[in-house]
């Protein structure tokens, strides 16, 4: 009975706390629930930067490969990239780089540069750069380096505060790359360590090393750890955790490299539930699942539901599965918590995170289909074929859904049950696959080698 007034009070509080210019986008997904929806208004629908400049506020060079998405907070924009267009001519060669720019004009402020791992390709593939999307909390910035370190530094100047080296201190061995994007809630930082199977021996050499950790954000000290996927990690673990409050109780969900989703009590690391997102797959005669799909996408909390797709990077366009899981149950909930799924011929593999908005789920399939799905029933309402392989995740803002394909085109749809394409923007130069994020009335698009800030110009 008290819930409605409380919610209204919360909303008022939220509105009061928000600056009038809009909100920051301080982490992957913008918020701890990772739901790709934001309250920004007046974002540009059409923009161009090739033949003429239209609604381009500023653009800056990055490296030549950019897998992370930008995070925006405190007047700064942060993005991970590589060192193929060095900001510092004295620092040559392949590196992982985190760059910081002024949100107002794109002025380069500082960068944190990390040497490649001495173990080479197997743990830190060439030219992938720094893949983690940072999380900003107050004046601190948290990210995972290409060297599998969780780093806390000053958001103002990048000065290190503490570092937790997953390899040296926890026995972690990443598979081709460390890519998890940290999540800060309260005093804790949650992150996937990126532990993986040995690239050559095809097995997990140290199954006791943790995959999921919670770290004190002030001290960098480990609060709890969990090695759940153990020896069953197929390859690497590149996913990121999400945080939700379900029936008044907080939980944090970690995507595992075994295709299971694990939810824990945030403060203690006690397992609340786990779900096998590959349960629909047949096993071959040797007991291996039929696809290499796992959880690369980030789980999204929407009320009592968690939504996540299965998939893997570039090498297969095969069938995947999008699921809504009931997050109110406990234990192994694979058989009991599936609310709906789209699988088989219904949904291809996907490494994209979903946006859930007004009873609709916006999802991207790897071959390039953009879907609008009913949140209650899992029924597809409409679909648009972007014709080009898509890695990125959508953004819902101001009654529109933005989505980017592998050719860098940004398609803008009206949200809702009727499909309406408002604009199809040609790829911005230097931009390919990735996501679109918004903060403070501006869209940010980071591509292979450029970062654009897009805003309505009068």
């Amino acid at each position, binding site marked *: 009975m008290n819930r409605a007034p409380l919610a209204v009070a919360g909303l008022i509080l939220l509105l009061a706390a928000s600056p009038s210019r809009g909100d920051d986008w301080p982490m992957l997904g913008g918020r701890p629930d990772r739901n790709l929806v934001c309250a920004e208004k007046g974002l540009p629908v059409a923009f161009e930067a090739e033949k003429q400049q239209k609604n381009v506020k500023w653009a800056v060079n990055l490296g030549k490969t950019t897998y992370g998405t930008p995070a925006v907070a405190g007047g700064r924009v942060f993005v991970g990239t590589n060192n193929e267009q060095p900001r510092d001519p004295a620092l040559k060669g392949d590196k992982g780089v985190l760059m910081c720019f002024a949100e107002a004009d794109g002025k380069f402020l500082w960068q944190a540069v990390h040497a490649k791992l001495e173990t080479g390709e197997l743990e830190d593939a*060439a*030219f992938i750069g720094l893949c983690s999307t940072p999380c900003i909390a107050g004046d601190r910035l948290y990210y995972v380096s290409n060297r599998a370190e969780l780093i806390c530094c000053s958001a103002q100047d990048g000065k290190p505060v503490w570092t937790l080296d997953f390899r040296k201190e926890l026995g972690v061995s990443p598979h081709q790359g460390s890519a998890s994007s940290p999540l800060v809630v309260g005093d804790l930082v949650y992150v996937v360590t990126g532990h993986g199977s040995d690239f050559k021996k095809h097995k997990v050499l140290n199954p006791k090393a943790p995959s999921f950790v919670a770290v004190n954000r002030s001290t960098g000290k480990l609060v709890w750890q969990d090695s759940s996927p153990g020896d069953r990690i197929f390859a690497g673990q590149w996913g990121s955790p999400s945080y939700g409050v379900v029936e008044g109780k907080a939980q944090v969900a970690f995507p595992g490299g075994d295709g299971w989703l694990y939810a824990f009590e945030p403060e203690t690391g006690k397992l609340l539930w786990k779900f096998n997102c590959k349960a629909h797959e047949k096993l071959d005669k040797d007991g291996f699942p039929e696809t290499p799909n796992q959880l690369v996408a980030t789980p999204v909390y929407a009320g009592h539901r968690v939504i996540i797709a299965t998939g893997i990077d570039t090498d297969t366009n095969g069938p995947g599965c999008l699921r809504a899981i009931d997050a109110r149950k406990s234990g192994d909930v694979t058989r009991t918590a599936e609310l709906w799924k789209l699988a088989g011929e219904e949904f*291809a593999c996907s490494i994209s995170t979903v946006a859930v908005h007004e009873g609709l789920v916006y999802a991207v399939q790897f*071959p390039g289909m953009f879907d609008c799905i009913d949140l209650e029933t899992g029924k597809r309402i409409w679909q648009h074929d972007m014709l080009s392989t898509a890695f990125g995740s959508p953004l819902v803002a101001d009654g529109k859904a933005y989505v980017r394909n592998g050719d860098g*085109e940004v398609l803008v749809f009206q949200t809702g049950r009727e499909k309406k394409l408002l604009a199809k923007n040609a790829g911005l130069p230097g931009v390919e696959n990735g996501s679109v994020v918004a903060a403070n009335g501006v869209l940010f698009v980071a591509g292979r080698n450029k970062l654009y800030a897009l805003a309505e110009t009068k």
Partner: protein
Amino acid sequence: MLLASFALLADAGAQEWTRFRGPNGSGVSDSKSVPVTWTEKDFRWRVPIPGESHCQPVVSGDKLFLTSAIEQGKERMLLCLNKADGKELWSKKVAMATYAKHKLNSFASSSPAVDKDRVYAAFVSSEQFLVKAWDHSGKELWTEDLGAFKAQHGHGSSPVVFEDRLVLTNDQDGESFIAALDTKTGKVAWKSARRGGDQMTAYGTPCILERKGAPTQVITSSQTHGLSSLDLKTGAPLWEAKVFDKRAVSSPVLAGDLVIGTCGQGGGGSCLAAVKIGGNGDVTSSNVAYTIRQVVPYVPTPVATADRLFWVTDGGVANCAELATGKVLWSERLVDKTIFYGSPVAIDGKLYIVSQKGDMFVFGASDSFKLLSKNPMGEGSHSTPCVDGDRLYLKTFTHLVCVGGK
């Protein structure tokens, strides 16, 4: 009468699918009688091939030649089959070291090349680049080692024969060059240095340009040189259009006065470029007819007909454009839960391409999209079909399949 027969013979000779992607790498067959629809029961024959390979078989007379590799590439093979029934006539094994490659590549993705006297194949490892020749009865004639081969994803380029020269491209992460070998002796006639380097390996197979008043040329596709030309006689670089900023995996295609090529990376193609033939030195600013950056292929090679260009993206979207202008007429998805690494071939106004799952899609080479059929090949494939008269041969991962014929 006699003249007519000669003309027919000459035509049949020109049409023999003696190299990767058939006549001069065009992917275009003049056959009129290859089936459009079939089931597995309709296979003329299907035979197991040892190991795994993604090559395309080549034809000479009544023989088929193909490559394979067993035990993680520790043994490479050249096989000769009777094209009537797929029975093995002879096979040769070459012991080599294994090496790191892309998991979707094979240790025998390079196809053989054949002329009336000899069959040629290239096998690489980190230490060796072996080029070998046998006669059609399997007698080994010569071996030449072009040296170390360094590449992140393995090897793909096939040898090409023109008159008495065997051309090999060797654009790789280490020391790179294009080489022409004497077909009779295997001796290196020339080597032309190339700008290789880290992650600069190219995987395409060259084609040969013959034009009145110009030297015969080798046309290649690579990230560092873009679409480029060398004098076939001397190896001297003639012109290059630096149109690529990504990896070149598909092969260059000659189409009228244009050379077409594509580049890409990871998730797909990023640029299809058409370059006007001719000029000297760096022609990047003068000879680029057009580039297309949306919905273009990374691995599959395009096919040009008289005035149209067709391509299928790795993700399964078929496209048709005006050859002269690059204006896209249509883009239509063939299928969405598989991927395409083999290249399409054009047969009698239709395009044939196999998916990774092993379905041969046939669609019209026409100004409006029409999917004609989807036919099983019995197994997945990353290969390109070989067309021979009324038959089509396709290497699947572990088998060779023959469709059509009487």
